[in-house]
């Protein structure tokens, strides 16, 4: 039995998050005292004139009355908020992996990471306030594989969460071939059947575990029974052997019904990942744009009550916004006006984020699988300029993606116990005339400008 399988089944059975690779990052000795006139703890929760105390990379105190201990390094600014989380980037990936068409559900982004690739991109992303990012291989593939949440800091390529999600796409132009509406809806069917396969696998796996348990119990009982009646059984066996010899036949050992061991369901890595998706252990991010495939996807996934869906791209999502809102599905957008950015869906609308938010949809921001982290804040500001609420925009840059990708226990807000990922601005975090002055990543000052 492969050890990794054992580990992953054990972890999933107990509903535990997978243990991050490098949890043992060296502790930062420096004590930071960060004061801001407006301390945005989380979108909507503001402390006027508050401070944070950071020790060992962790926020240990928050509030108006937090005083600087002796020897602490003091940092001050107009506004402070949590470091931005890019919901979808290609940081530390080579272009071939980022756009690989051959990825499967079990392809792991963490295996493709090259932490030493283009360090300037990381520097620029940090200057833009993005302290962690969800990185994903296979942007163009039907199944992109397992995404990873990575810290941006080039000095510490810390993996925050190795298995953060599984990604898939519907109706994306692949290898120059754009599908028509039937192809796109067909892709929805294939995706849903894969989730179904995962669910069936998980069910049969659970069934197998129960059967195995029952079998082991039965075997133990039978063994006990045979042990107790050992002499009788021995005699019976010897007699049987003699009889067989007399008749010149081959002796057959007595068969017990307990001999039949339950069969393990056929395992393959993709099905295992899909099982975790169907069971809601990993969110499923689906890039999907047109109304027919959006409708079809929403309809066909409605029966999977544990599935955690995140929709990405969503050019035409305003037409199904109500249903998306009702099912509390977050939508991951890259609010750019570049023509052609959505392949054949050349209608990326800056007003989309605002329209969805007004319909009650939770909006998240990301670079759309590219390396645009430096400008993520400008993109969010553009969305605000086109009707998105400021608080919702800040949510889309911080807590939203952190929660969607299961790292909100450590990043996304400025709260006690969280990693100290802090941005200090000289003005409004979503105003493009204000600048990010200081960026702190896990208690370390990484940008001062």
């Amino acid at each position, binding site marked *: 039995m492969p050890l990794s399988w054992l580990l992953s089944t054990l972890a999933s059975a107990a509903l535990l998050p997978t243990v991050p690779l490098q949890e043992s990052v060296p502790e930062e000795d420096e004590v930071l005292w960060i004061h801001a006139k407006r301390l945005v703890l989380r979108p909507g929760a503001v402390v006027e004139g508050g401070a944070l105390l950071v020790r060992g990379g962790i926020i240990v105190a928050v509030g108006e009355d937090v005083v600087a201990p002796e020897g602490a390094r003091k940092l001050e600014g107009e506004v402070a908020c949590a470091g931005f989380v890019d919901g979808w980037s290609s940081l530390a990936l080579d272009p071939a992996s980022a756009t690989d068409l051959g990825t499967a559900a079990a392809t792991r982004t963490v295996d493709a990471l090259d932490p030493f690739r283009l360090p300037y991109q990381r520097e*620029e992303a940090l200057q833009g306030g993005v302290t962690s990012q969800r990185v994903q291989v296979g942007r163009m593939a039907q199944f992109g594989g397992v995404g990873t949440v990575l810290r941006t800091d080039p000095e510490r390529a810390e993996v925050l969460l190795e298995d953060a999600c599984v990604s898939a796409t519907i109706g994306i132009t692949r290898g120059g071939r754009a599908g028509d509406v039937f192809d796109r809806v067909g892709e929805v069917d294939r995706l849903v059947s894969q989730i179904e396969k995962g669910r069936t696998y998980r069910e049969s796996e659970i069934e197998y575990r129960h059967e195995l348990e029952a079998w082991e119990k039965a075997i133990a009982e039978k063994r006990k029974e045979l042990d107790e009646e050992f002499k009788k059984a021995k005699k019976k066996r010897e007699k049987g052997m003699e009889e067989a010899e007399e008749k010149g036949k081959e002796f057959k050992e007595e068969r017990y019904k307990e001999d039949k061991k339950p069969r393990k369901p056929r395992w393959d890595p993709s099905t295992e990942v899909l099982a975790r998706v169907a069971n809601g252990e990993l969110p499923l991010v689906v890039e999907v744009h047109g109304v027919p495939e959006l409708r079809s996807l929403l309809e066909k996934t409605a029966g999977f009550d544990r599935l955690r869906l995140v929709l990405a791209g969503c050019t035409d999502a305003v037409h199904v916004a109500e249903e998306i809102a009702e099912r509390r599905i977050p939508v991951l957008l890259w609010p*750019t*006006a*570049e*023509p052609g950015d959505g392949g054949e869906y050349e209608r990326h609308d*800056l007003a989309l984020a605002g329209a969805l938010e007004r319909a009650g949809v939770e909006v998240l921001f990301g670079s759309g699988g*590219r*390396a*645009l982290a*430096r*400008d993520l804040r*400008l*993109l969010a*500001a*553009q969305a*605000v*300029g*086109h009707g998105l*609420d*400021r608080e919702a925009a800040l949510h889309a840059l911080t807590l939203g993606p952190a929660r969607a990708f299961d790292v909100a226990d450590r990043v996304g807000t400025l709260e006690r116990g969280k990693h100290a990922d802090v941005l200090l601005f000289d003005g*409004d975090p*979503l*105003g*493009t*005339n204000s*600048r990010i002055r200081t960026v702190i990543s896990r208690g370390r000052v990484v940008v001062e400008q």
Partner: protein
Amino acid sequence: MKATMRSAAALYATVLPLLATLAQSASSQDEILQVRAKEVVLSDGSRLENGVVVVRNGKIERVGKLDLDDTKPFLEHDGVLTAGLIACQTLSGMGTEAHDGTRSLLPEARIAHAHSPRHSDFEKALEVGITSVVLTPTDENVAGGLTAVVKTAGGTVVAKEAHLTLSFSVHAFASQPQRFGRFFSGEDDGAAEDGGLEDTESDSRSSRSPTSYAGALLALDRRLEDETGAFSRAAKGQLPVLLTAWDRNEVARAARFASANRLAGAIRGAPLAADPGLLPLIRASKLAVVLGPFAVGHKTRALEAVKALQDAGVPVGFALDAPSSAPANFRLTAALAIAAGADRTEVLRSMTIVGARIAGVESRVGSLEAGKDADFVLWSGDPLDLSSRVEAVFVDGKPAWRNR
């Protein structure tokens, strides 16, 4: 914030139709409009609090801290008022002429003829606050023709012949060598009409078509000795040039070409203009530079060019480059330049008065000054802040676009 935006929108919803009816009813008399804004940005970049702009018959009559005349139509704006933005290059609303690289030399072609004022590209430009644009011919030809400055509403052509465009792009010189050779040897129809790059006189030195980029440049030099036509007007300083150049070498050649022939105008492209090897050449040529549009993820070095050029005293304008670039990128370009260190006031001047100067129409548009066209934009907040938005755009004193 949200509340004020909503109320502002409501204000326009009620006032704008009113304005339209007032404008109609007063057709026999002077059409007057007064606009008071919380902040009015003047041409030097200074900001006037609670400033008033008075418009009479589509022209700005006065700007300043004035009292409103209650008997005349007026508009109160709880935001910022600036002059309409000027884009120094675009292919908005053009058809195949935007890509037609089949006539290498058409110096007299007026792109104003390709202006289709009702094309949706112009409304898209209006939406981001652009009121005038420089329409350019394709840069796939060596001499593409004459640019035009047009307004994005009302179909006004501000300048029919704004620049002579020359492309130093290798595409113009070398994309189709067979056509190029034929053209330079005078067999091309277009060349026959325009005289071609080559002397029609049987000069043994020039009867061969150029075989290199440098040879073509020499041929261009000779065209500047023409006695009439666009080349001659450019050489005499009567017509500015717009030189397209992208690579380092192209930019260097364009700057040297302009210096040697004492041409005035601008370089369009030049993402590496801030390169220490290029900046002195550009400065010496006294050309302006038209940069952008930048999109998200653009190389930081190109973004930093805006600051470097402005610091060096080189006028900078911004391109719109519709329809291949989205209009929203026009303001994004400014925001990216500011994020890369450029001065806010200078960037806004680049988008207005400096842009108008590069377009050669600063006497009519580009700033809020008495006598100029009443082209202005009402913003919800600071125009350079992407989180603020265009609430309404006026062209020639008339409401041309508003945020619904």
